[in-house]
């Protein structure tokens, strides 16, 4: 439905410990780079395996090579960008993925009137709470 298979539907049949297809390996490398701090060692291992994978469906391999070079230069951000580009979108290849779902959503504090309104409501709640608790 979303062109993405995070996990087999039942997880009853466990996937092999080390996948052999480049698509899964690249996604694993990407996941390792998206944590804070990025796990470059795991990402490098997965990218190297992906380079030698026989099943490369859904993956733009020259981009994986670029990612390997970026990892060699310890540039995790560039490597993640290359890996993202290496993943072909779902609509163009049967084994592709929905790249939108591979980008974490990281909202930040927005200095908008709505945000300040909510903060004012929070302050009111805290104030009312203090009054009730002290009464």
């Amino acid at each position, binding site marked *: 439905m979303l062109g*993405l298979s995070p996990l087999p539907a039942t997880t009853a049949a466990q996937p092999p410990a080390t996948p052999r297809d480049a698509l899964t390996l690249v996604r694993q490398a990407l*996941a390792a780079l998206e944590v804070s701090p990025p796990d470059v060692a795991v990402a490098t291992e997965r990218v190297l395996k992906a380079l030698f994978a026989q099943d490369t469906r859904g993956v733009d391999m020259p981009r994986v090579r670029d990612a390997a070079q970026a990892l060699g230069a310890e540039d995790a951000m560039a490597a993640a960008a290359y890996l993202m580009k290496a993943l072909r979108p779902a609509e163009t290849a049967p084994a592709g993925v929905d790249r939108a779902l*591979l980008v974490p959503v990281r*909202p930040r504090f927005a200095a908008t009137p709505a945000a300040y309104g909510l903060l004012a409501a929070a302050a009111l*709640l*805290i104030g*009312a*709470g203090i009054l009730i*608790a002290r*009464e």
Partner: protein
Amino acid sequence: MTLPSHWKRVWTAVDARLALHNFLYEVPAYANTLPYVLGAITLAGLVILVGTGILLGQFYVPDPSAANQSIRAIITQVPAGQVIRGIHIWAAHLTVVVLLLHVVRVYATGAYRFPREANWAVGAALLATMLALFYTGTVLRWDQLGIEALKHNIAFAALLGVFGGWFSPAFSNHVPLLTRLYMAHVSLLPLLLFILLITHIYLVRQHGISAPLTRSEPAAVRYTFAQHLKKAAGYGCIMLGLALALSVIFPVGEGAAPVSGIEVTKPPWLFLPLYGLENLFGLQGLWGAVAFFLWLLAVPILDRDRAPGWNGRRRALTAGAAVLAALTGLGMFAWLTQPVAHFH
């Protein structure tokens, strides 16, 4: 309680039907001090969690192929979805903090001793249920952290052997484990929590609120249980305000759609001690959770000291401090080290 006459009439009419005067029984003055209201504040936190959880449940899809996407939709498309999810998650953290403080207070003052041993056991079960709710909530995120937490569920099932049936994916082959954990998060565990809570409150009512070790009760001051609840509601307002402020200042995001086969995340702070044990002893370290709860259950049996006041608490407090230090040390160890692969 002095009320204007029209409110008095309303109160009389409502009380005649709901027998609310039963909540006006007297409680000691110390019961309205912060250390003794922590349990009631936890209850207020649960009310916030249930309310926001019901709202989130309308938009969450508990299926592995759509869960991550549905959380993104909650954040970006559902009106106030991001704030409601933020309140739910921050309130969960705050509630667990308050609950742990409550446990520490009960332990420190020896409130588990006769005749409250059974209520201590119920409290331990409540703590376990709360941790299970926190854990299943983590899985429901369905990002890399969520899928790695799910792997621990499967590993724990294997450790439990024949007793791990329900936790295993093989229990129901055609229903994803994520869906079953969602069911546990929204129905099974809340139901269990409710039953345990009712039992806990009933036993508190029967035995009364345990007395402090040193303070004497000023005879002139009289409080009712309704005032105790009112105080807890006040602290509940503060908690809601804090959760709202935190959800605006530090909005909660969502990780990328998960991929299995790697371990690159660490669990939430609450589970870091267990993660530390796992780093030291492998998956067998998960038995540490079982050992901790067995110790909690055994506390009233192990503590035979009946001397009054803080003098009678020396050994128990030393043991408690040792456990707390071990948990903190393990947590710090896990926090400072790189994520470790336990499965692959």
